[in-house]
């Protein structure tokens, strides 16, 4: 096999991609370190422990205070505390839960899949709805469809997601009794057939996924609209029209491709919001995910779990952003040379 122009092109393309990848990976280090420093600072928000903790919450026993002191070496100098803590965090050792004594990382790991599942489904729903809505509004800015969606976007930005959850619960769950309003399984789950069980799970997921998706819907459809309007004004689109290329082809083939690129980054940026929102919908719908675990841990002041969740949540976001940036760089070679 010869080493033609095409192969040479691929080698260069792959090597700049690899270079970009390592550059981004290297940049990750200070960010990860920063995440641990800020998380560590949160532990020190409580002034004058441990007497303060006792005063704040009388339920905290003397024994729990001692465990807290020991876990975070609170009697040692600040730098030593941080380094000791960091050493354990690097090995993903966040200590044991105060509530049930199990390892924090194990508790978080078993809760993670359901939270990821709901968030991924929600993201799919956001894209599935916001994409066509944004495109149609962009085709006729100021038209009837655009005016109505603008109105709904405004409403969407102002509506508290947890209130929407309550209204849906009230209407679809309680008044009409169409959908289950809590948990992931019905009482008779184990008696159902394979398909019955999946259908049951699906029914339980409809409300949480809708509420999780709701938060991103308004913003994402605005971005699609904005990008699309911007791209449709570009010279190469006008040139395509001038050449007499079919209008649909211009919009969906040439314009859409370029309007979608920046959205990869937006999706990446929306990850912390989605993960953060899981606390709200998981506690409303009693979904046994990471958000609910963190909520329960906060209520019980289970500090090891809270700190573990905080660090893991931030690291997941960081990795999500990295993934989005890599996808973008892969799709748009201009990025890699900057």
């Amino acid at each position: 096999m010869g080493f033609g122009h095409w192969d040479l092109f691929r080698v260069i393309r792959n090597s700049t991609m690899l270079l970009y990848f390592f550059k981004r990976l290297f940049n990750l280090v200070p960010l990860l370190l920063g995440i641990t420093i800020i998380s560590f600072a949160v532990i020190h928000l409580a002034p004058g422990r441990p007497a303060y903790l006792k005063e704040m919450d009388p339920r905290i026993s003397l024994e729990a205070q001692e465990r807290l002191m020991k876990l975070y070496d609170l009697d040692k100098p600040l730098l030593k505390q941080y380094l000791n803590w960091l050493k354990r965090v690097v090995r993903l050792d966040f200590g044991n839960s105060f509530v049930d004594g199990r390892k924090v990382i194990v508790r978080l790991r078993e809760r993670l899949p359901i939270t990821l599942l709901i968030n991924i489904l929600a993201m799919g729903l956001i894209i599935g709805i916001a994409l066509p809505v944004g495109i149609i509004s962009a085709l006729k800015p100021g038209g009837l469809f655009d005016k109505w969606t603008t109105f709904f976007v405004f409403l969407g930005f102002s509506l508290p997601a947890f209130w929407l959850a309550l209204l849906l619960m009230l209407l679809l769950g309680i008044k009409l009794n169409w959908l289950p309003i809590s948990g992931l399984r019905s009482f008779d789950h184990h008696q159902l057939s394979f398909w019955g069980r999946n259908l049951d799970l699906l029914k339980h997921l409809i409300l949480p996924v809708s509420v999780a998706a709701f938060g991103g819907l308004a913003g994402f459809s605005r971005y699609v609209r904005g990008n699309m309007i911007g791209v449709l004004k570009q010279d190469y689109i006008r040139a395509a029209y001038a050449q007499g290329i079919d209008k649909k082809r211009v919009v969906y083939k040439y314009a859409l491709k370029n309007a979608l690129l920046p959205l990869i980054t937006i999706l990446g940026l929306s990850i912390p919001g989605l993960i953060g929102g899981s606390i709200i919908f998981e506690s409303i719908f009693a979904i046994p995910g990471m958000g609910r675990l963190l909520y329960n841990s906060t209520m019980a002041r289970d500090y090891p779990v809270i700190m573990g969740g905080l660090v893991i949540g931030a690291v997941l976001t960081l990795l999500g952003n990295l993934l989005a940036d890599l996808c973008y760089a892969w799709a748009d070679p201009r990025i890699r040379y900057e």
Partner: protein
Amino acid sequence: MNKLILFGISIIAVLVLLAVFAPFISPYNPQAIDVENILSPPNRVHILGTDSLGRDLFSRMLYGTRVSLEVGLVAVSVSLIIGVLLGSLAGYWGGRVDNLIMRFVDIMLCFPTFFLLLAMVAFLRATIFNIMLIIGLTSWMGIARLVRAEVLSIKEKDFVRYAKAMGAGNFKIISRHILPNALPPVLVAAVLGMGGAILTESALSFLGLGVQPPTASWGNILMEGKAVIDIGWWLTLFPGMAILVTVLGYNLLGEGLRK
């Protein structure tokens, strides 16, 4: 003045009046328990109904208005102080200072905000002041980025160069010449931020981690309403509408100012 501004301002003005004159308008003491009228639906005596302790919902919501408006104002002030300070430092000095501050912003943006809020609440006492403080501490990053970008473009303008040539100090240049010109977009962000802060407080209070009962906030009324959601729809409907209208007011005003 455009329609959006007018509409937004009227909503906020009405809310401010309701909040200021809450003691005169509210028909009942918001904490007064009326055991004979527990969970009564909206009627002529209690126009929005009562909660599970027989307290008047309308009166409680009026006092909740105070909490919401305060939270919006104080939380945004905190995030403005931090954001403007760090943003102008980064934009004006550039180089290492800029690099350090912007990495700090990147790191803060990695945290799912609600996780960070929860962790902070777990270590602090849930007083109204603390809630406002931590909402501000977790929401200044957008403002810092905005201010930095504005400062970067303004500091190259001729009038800033002139001031520098006339021997004005750095502090004077930033506070007298740069920041006033960066004000409009920051104002928009601040107004939109108030709506965001009100949403966040209501969500925290709804989860029982924000403003603590018996002090009434729209969020904690909703929390108490959730326990009786199947028999007391009014406890879920009205406070939520109050939040929606308030946040809508700020968003309309912000959007109007942007234009």
